[in-house]
C-alpha cells in the first residue's frame, strides 16, 4: 500500500457498496429480532433503503481521479449510470416482492437481493480481474439461492439447480481465461493488460483469442447470449416472479456494463498482434452472436404459451439487440456505448413493469398461461394498461421507451457501417411484434375461464406498475434525449482511456 493512501479520497467510489452492506446488516437484524408483525415491513425498509442508496452515486459523482482502491475500481460516469440503474431495479424488485405470497414475508429474501445488488454494483465499476471475478460471483451465487427460494416447489429448486450448474461451469471457464490473461502479462488490471500483450505474445494472436473466447463464455452466460442461453427459459419459469424480474434486469444490466468495459479495455482497437486486429475479431464474433441470439430468441418465443417463458425468450432476443450495440462499438463512437446504456435503462423499467403485472396475475389466478389472461382489461383495466405499456415498450412501439431504445441501437449499427446487421435486427423486431401483440390482443379482446374474477391491486403493486409505466412513457418521449445525452457523456468517459 502506498504511503500516501488517503481513505477519504477513495471513499466516494464505494459509498453505494458500503451503504448496501450496512443495509444488508440492518435487514438481517430486523429479520432476526424484528418479530413476526414486522416481517412485511422489511420489504419496505429494503425498498426505501435501496431507493435512497440509488441516489448516492448522483450526490458523490465521479471526479477527476477515476481509479481507486489500488486500481480495483474505476469510478467513471458510465459506472455511475449503471449503479443508479441497478440499485433502482433492486428497489423496485423488493417493492414487487412484498406482494408475492411465497417469498414476500421472508426477511432473507431481501437480504439476498441486497447482497446480489452489492455484487452487481461492484462489477459496474470493476477495473481489475480480481474485482470482476469477486463481483460477478457476489452477484451470481445469491441469484442461485433466490431462484430456488421456494424450497418445497419442485420447479423452483430445479430452476435453481440448472442455473447453478450452468453458472458454475461458465464461471469456471471464465476464471481460466482470467488466469491465462494474467499469465501472459503478469497484470490483473484490465486497463494495463492490453499494453503488456505485444511483449508477451509476440506475433501470435492465438493465445489471446483463446482467452477472449473463455471470457465470452462467462459473460455470455450472464447476459443469456446464444449458445449459453439454455438456462434462461427454465430459470425464468421456475424462479419466483420477483427473482425472474431481478435476473432479467439488474443482473443483465450489470453484466452488459462489464462486457462493454472489459471488451473495450482488454482488447482495444489499437491492439494489433501479428496483422490481426483483435477488436475487429471480437466485433465480428459479437455481430454473429447478436444475429443468432435475437433470431433464436424471437423464433422460440413464437410458440410459447406460458407468459414467463415468453418473456424469457423475449429477454434472450433483447440481449441480441443489445449485442448489436456492443458490436457497433467498432466505430469508437460514444453513440454505440450510449445506446447500450440507454437500452438497458429503459429495459429495466419495462421488464419490471411487465413482471409486476405477471406477478399480480398469477398470484390471483394461480395461472401463468397466456390464454388465461383473456379479458384482463375488464377484470382490472389499470393492470391491463400497465402490462400493455410494458409490452409495447418491449415491442418497440412509440410512445413507449422501447422505440427509442431500438432506434438508438440500430442507428449505432448503421453509423458503424454495419447496415446488414441493422437490417437483420429490424426484421427481428418485426417478427417479435407478432407475439407481443398477441398478448395485448388476449388481454383486451379474448375471454377466459377467469373472466368474471376481478383482480385487486395492492398499494405496493400500484406503485410498481405506476412508477415503471410513467418511467417507460417518459423515456419514450421527453426523457429520451436528456437521458441519452447523459449516457453519451458516460460513454465518452469510457472511451477516453
Amino acid at each position, binding site marked *: *500500500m502506498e504511503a500516501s493512501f488517503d481513505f477519504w479520497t477513495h471513499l466516494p467510489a464505494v459509498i453505494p457498496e458500503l451503504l448496501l452492506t450496512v443495509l444488508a*446488516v440492518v435487514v438481517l437484524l430486523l429479520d*432476526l429480532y424484528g418479530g413476526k408483525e414486522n416481517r412485511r415491513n422489511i420489504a419496505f425498509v429494503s425498498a426505501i433503503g435501496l431507493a435512497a442508496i440509488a441516489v448516492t452515486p448522483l450526490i458523490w459523482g465521479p471526479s477527476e481521479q477515476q481509479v481507486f482502491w489500488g486500481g480495483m475500481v474505476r469510478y467513471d460516469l458510465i459506472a455511475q449510470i449503471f449503479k443508479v440503474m441497478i440499485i433502482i431495479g433492486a428497489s423496485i424488485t423488493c417493492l414487487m416482492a412484498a406482494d408475492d405470497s411465497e417469498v414476500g414475508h421472508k426477511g432473507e429474501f431481501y437480504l439476498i437481493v441486497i447482497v446480489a445488488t452489492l455484487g452487481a454494483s461492484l462489477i459496474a465499476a470493476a477495473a481489475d480481474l480480481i474485482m470482476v471475478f469477486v463481483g460477478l460471483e457476489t452477484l451470481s451465487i445469491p441469484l442461485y439461492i433466490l431462484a430456488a427460494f421456494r424450497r418445497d416447489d419442485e420447479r423452483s429448486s430445479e430452476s435453481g439447480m440448472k442455473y447453478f450448474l450452468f453458472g458454475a461451469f461458465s464461471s469456471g471457464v471464465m476464471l481460466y481465461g482470467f488466469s491465462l490473461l494474467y499469465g501472459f502479462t503478469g497484470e490483473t488490471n484490465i486497463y494495463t493488460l492490453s499494453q503488456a500483450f505485444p511483449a508477451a505474445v509476440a*506475433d501470435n494472436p*492465438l493465445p489471446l483469442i483463446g482467452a477472449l473466447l473463455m471470457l465470452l463464455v462467462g459473460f455470455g452466460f450472464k447476459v443469456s447470449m446464444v449458445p449459453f442461453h439454455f438456462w434462461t427459459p427454465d430459470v425464468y419459469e421456475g424462479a419466483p416472479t420477483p427473482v425472474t424480474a431481478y435476473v432479467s434486469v439488474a443482473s443483465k444490466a450489470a453484466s452488459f456494463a462489464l462486457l462493454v468495459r472489459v471488451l473495450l479495455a482488454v482488447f482495444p482497437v489499437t491492439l494489433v498482434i501479428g496483422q490481426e486486429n483483435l477488436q475487429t475479431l471480437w466485433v465480428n464474433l459479437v455481430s454473429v452472436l447478436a444475429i443468432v441470439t435475437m433470431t433464436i430468441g424471437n423464433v422460440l418465443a413464437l410458440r410459447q404459451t406460458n407468459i414467463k417463458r415468453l418473456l424469457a425468450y423475449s429477454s434472450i432476443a433483447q440481449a441480441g439487440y443489445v449485442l448489436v450495440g456492443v458490436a457497433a462499438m467498432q466505430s469508437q463512437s460514444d453513440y454505440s456505448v450510449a445506446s447500450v446504456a440507454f437500452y438497458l435503462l429503459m429495459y429495466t423499467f419495462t421488464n419490471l413493469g411487465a413482471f409486476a403485472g405477471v406477478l399480480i396475475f398469477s398470484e390471483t389466478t394461480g395461472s401463468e398461461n397466456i390464454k388465461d389472461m383473456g379479458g384482463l382489461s375488464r377484470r382490472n383495466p389499470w393492470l391491463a394498461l400497465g402490462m400493455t405499456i410494458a409490452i409495447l415498450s418491449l415491442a418497440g412501439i412509440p410512445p413507449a421507451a422501447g422505440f427509442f431504445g431500438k432506434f438508438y441501437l440500430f442507428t449505432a449499427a448503421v453509423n458503424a457501417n454495419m447496415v446488414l446487421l441493422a437490417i437483420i435486427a429490424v426484421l427481428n423486431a418485426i417478427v417479435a411484434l407478432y407475439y407481443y401483440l398477441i398478448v395485448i390482443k388476449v388481454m383486451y379482446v379474448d375471454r377466459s375461464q377467469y373472466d368474471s374474477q376481478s383482480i385487486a391491486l395492492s398499494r405496493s403493486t400500484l406503485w410498481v406498475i405506476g412508477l415503471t409505466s410513467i418511467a417507460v412513457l417518459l423515456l419514450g418521449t421527453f426523457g429520451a434525449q436528456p437521458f441519452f445525452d447523459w449516457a453519451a457523456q458516460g460513454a465518452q468517459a469510457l472511451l477516453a482511456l
Partner: protein
Amino acid sequence: MNVLNEWAFVGIFIAIAWVFPALPIIIARFFGPKKPNAIKLMTYESGVETVGDTWVQFKIQYYLYGLVFLIFDVEMVFLFPWAVAYNELNFFAFGAGLLFIFLLTDALIYAWRKNALEWS
C-alpha cells in the same frame, strides 16, 4: 527468449488433452465386451457388501453444520495474512480487518438465531 514457443506448446497440449481422456471412453463404449452377471454388478466397496439400504437418511442438521463450518473455515484465508502482518498494519487496514470479522460475526449470529447450530 521467445515466449511464443512456450504458449504454442500449451496450445497443442490442450488440443491433445481433449482427445486423451475422450478416447478410452469412446473405445470402451464401442469395443468393450458387455457380459454383465450378478457378481460383476455387485457393489464393491472395500470388498464388503453393504448392509441395508445405502441411502441412509442423515439428519438435515448434519448438512447445516457441515455447510456453516465450510464457510467459516474458509474465511480464515483472509484473516491469516491479516494476523501475520498485524504489527505492520496501518489504522485503515486494521479497521478493514475488524469490519470483516464483524460481518462474519453477523453471519454467525444469524446461523445461531435460526437454530442452525442446534443438534436436536
